[in-house]
């Protein structure tokens, strides 16, 4: 306890110093990289080194407003903070020099400011932007604020105090009960209550027990798991340690797909810094509790995200799902008792422990407490990553958060929750975002991805894209999934080539139901979902494609489509 208080005091002193200095923050992350924010950072670094002695520069986490990237924001000692969006390499010198030397922003280039600066210069207050004000930031509370690679920033913002208070003042059983009572449900797709899952693992007296964090995140359209890790890795690390403490486990793994260097490096750095400060390893913070953690990388395989396939991958094998039972809590990784949760699920835990389960329960809906972290992309004006309270309707998210359509006349279709979930049409846009309402509508929050398609989107063409993914990613273990997906893709491709016939609709439905009943894991069981839901909302369009009346001229390359079919050997 004392050890932690010392850490905290040191972090706070530095944090206050930084906040009252001239501080330039540039948002990073994968999406930022795609828009050149790392180049912008390097150039700014050089400019600042050559021209200033009193300016701090940090590459901070992305704030989530991805349509404005790269984002640069400048805090001045007088407490003003101004945000610039879509900053180019050509103008950064001018912005930095004018703002930092004259203490006056280039007003017409700023998109927002904190209250003080907003009042001073007539810039929009950042908290008046609907896609900021309507968010409820819990897991993403540090986004846009801290340097994700600096553990002291995290501690200064209240980080690791939940861990410290848990291991010195609260019993493991208490933490499990808190998580149970909070109503936190798993954010990896199945929506299973996290506390209940933990209570399966907790009683086992095995000396070696594992808690795993799933960041396979293969769902196209979803980037919030990698988003949390690259933008605030410590909130996940703290969550996973708390998971370990609550269930009396010895080891934790963060499981990430290879190739995503930014989140991988952030996770590794966070873990090694936590070891250095005594927050991981033997006798954490001088307590009786010991816990180790490492990053486990996987090769490219979507099914590796399925919980038992993931264990196979950590063991270094082909990531194909196991038969259940035995369930992971009895026999998981290396046959030891194991728990597995998604990144988002675990990232809520520090704040739940710190602020109490009743607080968490007060946010969201009756059946789904807390927030949803949505990733908006496609034909939407403000694509980005936003944390919204559960219970908002889809339409509110599209209008207030997403700012409506980007090009075209109207939003025709949404792909929500990844390719094992569904398509939604306009009739469903008043659905409330919570687990139960969404699945009743035929879709799912799933991974949190919402892909927006305008009126020009061809449903059969989109379905072909989704089923091509499912085909490509079938692990091949169960033949209904392996062959069924291939067969469905052939039919959809036939439809796109105007070579389909009226039997095809029956055929595709039959394949879908065999896949559902004959597959071991969700990949085969749910792989027909996009088509099933599309039949609900876009039946006429699909029927006319079956009858040879599809016209793909002008659609995404005139209906041409790579079909990277590959059946795993």
């Amino acid at each position: 306890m004392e050890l932690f208080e010392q850490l905290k005091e040191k972090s706070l002193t530095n944090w206050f110093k930084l906040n009252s200095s001239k501080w330039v923050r540039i948002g990073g992350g994968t999406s930022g990289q795609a828009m050149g924010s790392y180049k912008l950072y390097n150039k700014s670094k050089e400019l600042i080194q050559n021209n200033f002695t009193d300016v701090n520069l940090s590459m901070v986490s992305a704030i989530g407003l991805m349509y404005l990237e790269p984002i640069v924001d400048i805090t001045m000692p007088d407490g003003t903070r101004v945000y610039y969006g879509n900053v180019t390499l050509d103008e950064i010198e001018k912005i930095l020099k004018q703002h930092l030397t004259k203490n006056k922003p280039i007003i017409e280039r700023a998109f927002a400011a904190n209250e003080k600066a907003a009042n001073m210069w007539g810039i929009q207050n950042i908290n008046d932007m609907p896609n900021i004000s309507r968010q409820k930031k819990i897991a993403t509370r540090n986004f846009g604020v801290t340097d994700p690679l600096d553990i002291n920033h995290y501690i200064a913002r209240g980080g690791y105090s939940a861990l410290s208070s848990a291991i010195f003042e609260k019993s493991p059983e208490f933490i499990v009960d808190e998580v149970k009572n909070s109503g936190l449900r798993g954010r990896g797709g199945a929506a299973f209550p996290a506390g209940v899952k933990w209570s399966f693992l907790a009683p086992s007296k095995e000396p070696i027990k594992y808690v795993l964090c799933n960041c396979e995140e293969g769902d196209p359209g979803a980037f919030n798991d990698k988003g949390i890790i690259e933008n605030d890795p410590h909130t996940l690390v703290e969550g996973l340690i708390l998971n370990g403490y609550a269930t009396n486990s010895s080891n934790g793994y963060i499981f990430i797909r290879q190739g995503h260097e930014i989140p991988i490096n952030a996770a590794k750095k966070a873990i090694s810094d936590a070891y250095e400060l005594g927050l991981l390893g033997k006798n954490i913070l001088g307590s009786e509790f010991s816990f180790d953690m490492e990053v486990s990388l996987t090769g490219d395989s979507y099914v590796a995200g399925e919980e038992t396939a993931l264990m196979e991958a950590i063991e270094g094998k082909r990531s194909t799902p196991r038969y259940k039972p035995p369930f992971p809590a009895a026999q998981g990784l290396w046959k030891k008792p194991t728990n597995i949760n998604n990144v988002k699920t675990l990232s809520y835990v520090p704040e739940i422990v710190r602020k109490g389960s009743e607080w968490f329960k007060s946010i969201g809906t009756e059946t789904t407490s807390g927030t949803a972290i949505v990733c908006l992309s496609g034909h939407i004006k403000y694509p980005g990553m936003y944390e919204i309270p559960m219970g908002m309707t889809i339409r509110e998210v599209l209008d207030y958060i997403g700012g409506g359509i980007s090009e075209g006349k109207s939003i025709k279709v949404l792909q929500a929750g990844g390719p094992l979930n569904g398509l939604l049409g306009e009739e469903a846009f008043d659905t409330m975002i919570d687990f139960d309402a969404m699945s009743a509508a035929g879709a799912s929050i799933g991974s949190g991805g919402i892909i927006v398609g305008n009126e020009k989107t061809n449903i059969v063409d989109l379905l072909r894209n989704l089923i091509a993914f499912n085909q490509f990613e079938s692990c091949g273990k169960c033949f209904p999934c392996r062959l069924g997906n291939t067969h469905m893709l052939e039919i959809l491709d036939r439809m796109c080539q105007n070579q389909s016939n009226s039997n095809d609709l029956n055929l595709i439905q039959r394949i879908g139901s065999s896949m559902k009943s004959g597959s071991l894991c969700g990949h085969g069981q749910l792989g027909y979902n996009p088509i099933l839901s599309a039949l609900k909302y876009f039946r006429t369009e699909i029927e006319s494609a079956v009858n040879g009346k599809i016209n793909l001229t002008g659609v995404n390359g005139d209906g041409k489509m790579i079909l990277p079919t590959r059946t795993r050997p």
Partner: protein
Amino acid sequence: MPENSNLLEKIKHSLESQEQPTVTILSSLLSIQDNLHYIPSEGISETAKFCGKSTNEVWSVASFYTNFRFTPPGDNVVDVCWGPTCHLLGAQIIIDNLQKTLEIDGEGESKDGKITLKYNTCLGACAQAPCIAIDHYIHGKQDKNTANKIINEIRNK
């Protein structure tokens, strides 16, 4: 042959320099591919020896994950995303164009052998779609012209 012993040394170094506590067939293969950009057949047999498994077991893992390749790639690897967001925003047009520029059908090496083209199911920067990546570094908001420009720049370097 000196070249071959050099390769073997690099493989052994890849296997032995793994830093994480848990070392497996998969982690070993990832490490080899990280260093050599492909898995030579010696990589399979050395991994088998190193992990105390049969080459059969190693092959079963190597052939499963789609990121592994068994011949050397070009000097630069270009990933093009064909995920649904990129698809809706024009990925097919970009892919088609890149294939023409590089004179290839499907995935693989350009005629001059300098560039490898790969399909990617989602690069994780969907908010900036359509995306391509050069050696894992992502470029967002692409169209056929900007993507071609990037490719020509790296090709002429």
